[in-house]
């Protein structure tokens, strides 16, 4: 079994955060930032 389980912030979320920071905030894509924290 190659799957590994982790707690806390998953790596994909960290990758997404970093990648979004690099994108042009004024670009006409549908994604706004920051990620919601409620």
């Amino acid at each position: 079994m190659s799957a590994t389980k982790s707690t806390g912030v998953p790596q994909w979320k960290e990758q997404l955060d970093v990648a979004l920071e690099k994108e042009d905030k004024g670009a006409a894509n549908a994604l706004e930032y920051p990620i919601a924290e409620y």
Partner: protein
Amino acid sequence: MSPLSESVILLQTSTDIRTPKAGQILSRPESIEVAWWLPKSNLQFRLTCTAYLLPHPSHPSWTEFPAWKLGPNVEWEQERLKAYDALPRFLRASFCRPVPGSKLENPEDAKKWPNELPSRAEAANDKEKEQVDEALKNFAVLLLEPREVDVLELAAVPYLRTKYFKVDGGWTEESLVP
């Protein structure tokens, strides 16, 4: 303090509540897949999510938004208004036009549409205030709760692909063939 468990992640974006997409989301909110390619990092994300739509309070679907689950103490309409104000001016204007995807009988009409809209506080006259009100009627916050994420790293040689999925409240990952 969030009423959600720590493993719940909500991604916030927006949409026009008049679009067919919004109706599709409302009809099957637990079967939403989103694909994003972020070119500067050369990463592709495919997210399988449950979606929650937060429209204008006058919209019939407003009562379907599960505030009780996502944040009973959150002023959700204020959050929606803040999300509108945070948009770039050109994007705000897109909510003050005919329904996206509807037939454009006369292309000349498009020249009459606003190219930009101010925030609520910046609206300087009655016309702008009417346009902002119209945009706010159509503007909906879309919250996405991912339960499976497929990440493809296209900058790596060879490509790397990883699937993340939720199990028992935590995130599990496994490598996939790209």
